[in-house]
């Protein structure tokens, strides 16, 4: 296994915690987020998120200045809360800390409760400690989701719905999961549901907080659901775990349903929990996927790939590549994760044995290893364009962020239909690659060299 013994990070492969927190909060209906810290962090994250989703992203900041940093930022935070309420009138406010607030040791929970009492505020204000130095955006997403559920899920009255808790996947993926649930006639609570808030239809007049998101009342009753299906298998301290420990809601964890096996597992689970049958139409989708996999298998087999990004996404893309004979040679993530290494090592891997897994890594390493391994396709977020520019490795974009293309927020890859869509993108990239140099290659190989 390859280790990274170095101090400098050259071209980061991850973002920081609060960014993931912002996206999670966007999954609550009529919510607004406030970053406690310096102004710049908020602006940078807004820019990043806005460019991926092509949506206005309003995130407030307590805009800590020098004074606030020396004497504490309480005053700024209170003023910020006042102003957020004045302008946005939200039903829920999320407060995320940045490195700065954590470093100076702000007690946001105390400030928050005093604020709520003194102003007589009844809407939930949810805090989540998310120092950027403490983890990546992936951990920020999970941690914030956990805090939201911990804070809001108080009602344990039983009902007939199931919880479906998602990691940071595309808005199209969220809608696809809902479609599958609806096709199976399963009542559900999907959380955090940012499928509309971060991909909102054009409409007049403009709304400062877009419609959509999981209803607060729904999050409140997650403790009374029949079961929780948690999509994502890399993290332990998850909202689903909380619901299990606190309310005895049975927890089932599955990988992101990309690929045949993962989608099968997801649907099988739904069927087992609810007893509802899988409708014919979904079976047709499955058949179509297999048909497509067969059509493409020979083209796919030449694929030698690097997979990078969020641990959850990386894992499911990895298994999908394995199913299709696309050789995974390098698995990389900016997050620190022992779990991903174990998961991948535990896979029966008939394709190759020189697979390398690196965590807490950067793109300079990913490039170096990819070149050593003669990778011919990379799969991950758009920062991988660096691999294309420097190493000539074509990139199939998936995950977060996708900053240099339109539609990155609605790339569909879950379910049978999504998988096929995603697989076609990979196969076509391999084909394009081949045809680009095919005539020349053959000429060099069999004419000139003979």
């Amino acid at each position: 296994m390859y280790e990274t013994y170095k101090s400098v990070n050259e071209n980061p492969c991850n973002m920081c915690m609060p960014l993931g927190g912002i996206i999670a909060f966007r999954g609550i209906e009529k919510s607004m987020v406030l970053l406690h810290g310096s102004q710049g962090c908020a602006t940078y994250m807004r820019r990043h998120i806005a460019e991926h989703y092509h949506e206005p992203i309003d995130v407030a900041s307590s805009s800590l200045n020098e004074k606030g940093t020396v004497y504490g930022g309480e005053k700024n935070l209170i003023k910020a809360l006042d102003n957020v309420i004045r302008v946005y009138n939200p039903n829920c406010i999320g407060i995320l800390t940045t490195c700065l607030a954590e470093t100076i040791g702000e007690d946001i929970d105390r400030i928050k409760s005093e604020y709520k009492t003194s102003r007589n505020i009844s809407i939930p204000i949810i805090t989540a400690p998310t120092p950027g130095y403490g983890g990546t955006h992936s951990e920020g997403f999970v941690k914030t989701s956990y805090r939201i559920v911990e804070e809001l899920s108080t009602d344990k009255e039983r009902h007939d719905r199931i919880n479906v808790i998602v990691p940071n996947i595309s808005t199209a993926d969220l809608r696809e999961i809902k479609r599958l649930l609806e096709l199976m006639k399963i009542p559900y609570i999907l959380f955090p549901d940012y499928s509309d808030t971060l991909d909102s239809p054009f409409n007049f007049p403009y709304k400062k907080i877009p419609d959509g998101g999981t209803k607060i009342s729904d999050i409140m009753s997650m403790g009374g659901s029949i079961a929780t299906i948690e999509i994502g298998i890399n993290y332990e301290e998850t909202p689903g775990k909380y619901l299990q420990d606190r309310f005895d809601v049975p927890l089932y964890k599955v990988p992101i349903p990309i690929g045949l096996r993962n989608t099968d597992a997801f649907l099988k689970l739904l069927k087992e929990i609810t007893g509802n049958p899988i409708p014919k139409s979904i079976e047709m989708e499955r058949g179509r996927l297999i048909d497509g996999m067969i059509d493409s298998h020979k083209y796919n087999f030449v694929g030698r790939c690097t997979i990078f990004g969020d641990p959850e996404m990386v894992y499911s893309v990895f298994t999908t590549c394995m199913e299709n004979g696309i050789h995974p040679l390098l698995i990389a993530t900016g997050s620190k994760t022992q779990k991903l290494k174990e998961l991948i090592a535990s896979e029966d891997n008939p394709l190759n044995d020189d697979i390398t897994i690196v965590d807490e890594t950067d793109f300079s390493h990913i490039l170096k290893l990819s070149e050593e391994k003669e990778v011919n396709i990379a799969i991950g977020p758009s920062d991988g364009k660096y691999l294309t520019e420097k190493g000539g490795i074509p990139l199939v974009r998936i995950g977060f962020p996708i900053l240099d293309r339109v539609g990155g927020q609605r790339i569909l890859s879950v379910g049978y239909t999504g998988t096929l869509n995603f697989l076609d993108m990979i196969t076509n990239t391999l084909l394009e690659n081949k045809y680009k140099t095919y005539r020349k290659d053959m000429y060099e190989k069999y004419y000139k060299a003979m």
Partner: protein
Amino acid sequence: MELRLDIPEREKFIKMKGKHHKKEFICNTDSVAGSVSQRACVYSGARVVLNPIEDAVHLVHGPIGCASYTWDIRGSLSSGSELFRNSFSSDLKESDVIFGGEEKLSKCIDEIYEKYKPKLIFVYSTCIAGVIGDDIKAVCKESSKKYNIYVVPVESSGFVGNKAAGYKAACNSLLDLIKEFPVLKKEPLSINYMGDFNLAGEAWIIKGYLNQMGLKVNTIFTGDSNFESLKKATASSLNIVQCAGSMTYLAKKFEETFDIPYMKVSFLGIEDTSNSLRKIAAFFNDKDVMLKTEKLIEEKTKMAKPIIEKYKRYLKGKKAAIFVGGGFKAISLIKQFRELGIDVVVIGTQNGQKDEYEKIEEIADYGTVILDDANPSELEKFMVEKGADILAGGVKERFLSYKMGIAFIDHNHDRKHPLSGYEGAINFAEEVYTTACSPVWKYVKDGVNKCV
């Protein structure tokens, strides 16, 4: 029209030309907490200024985010090294925050030297580096000595002001660096061009003009510049400053330290470009230069005018809003929109200075709303009330504009076409036309999102 706002404290940052002549108006101060300011931080300002120095390593001393979000996000072009397009970070973790990050920083510099052997490394301070009290200066000094290269600290801790403070920090670092070089003998017809970051090749266009006028450009601050070109700066007889917000300070310092006078110029729009070129030629008071300048202006104007006139026919009478980083840029944009027959009805900046706002008020039409450090909700309110058809702004404003059904001009550092000079004026007109006259607006203006 009322200027009532949801956040009363913000009312001091806004006024309307004509109506509020005597009204209190403040700018260049801290953002109001929770107002959703569009501003960035000191580090961001410093990075803007220094980033285009191509063969330098730009190392961000702080937690990873600050470096992640700024990796290769600006469209500065290089004719040489591409080293500047990498994002180096000391990636401070929790333990570094507790025990200090100096040692890690020093190791980072070692590793960078080992791999790239650069002559110049900029080390940017961030909020966290500032708060934990790392002595970046000392580390830089030591590394400089160790490798016999220039490791220059940039005091850009994010919370000690706004972007403008970052410009200043960067200028100080540049000055410190240049002071270490031998001062050269002045060359008569030579110039430094300050405040152009060569976005989409803008500095190349202007450099081309200056060369055609018979002038030699020693150093561009900092578009397409490098370690060697920075050394030549002291040989110039004149500094011209385009992005006034970021570089006037450096120009003043150059005047003090190296006795090189400066003038502010603008190359946005035909009018500004021609005036600026004439002003430069007049400074040198050289017959040949003046003749060449007039010839250039004539030729270029002849080329650009008819194209712009063509677009003007479609654009006349439309209304625009402006929200950009600096005041000087806003002023140029007002003129550029006017060249297209477009009235500007809302003007805001993130970091405009007092004198710039005075100038804006002077040239704006009556009733124009002027705002400092505006937030999305204020932009929305005034664009609706003033009936703006087009907004010129940065990335974050783009999506607000689109969601409101308003055309948009990208005035950010990531743009992919140059907006400077005559060529830029054409591009600008073309972009305004492209966005304002697109057929898509037909579908959004009336009866939105209804099938029948």
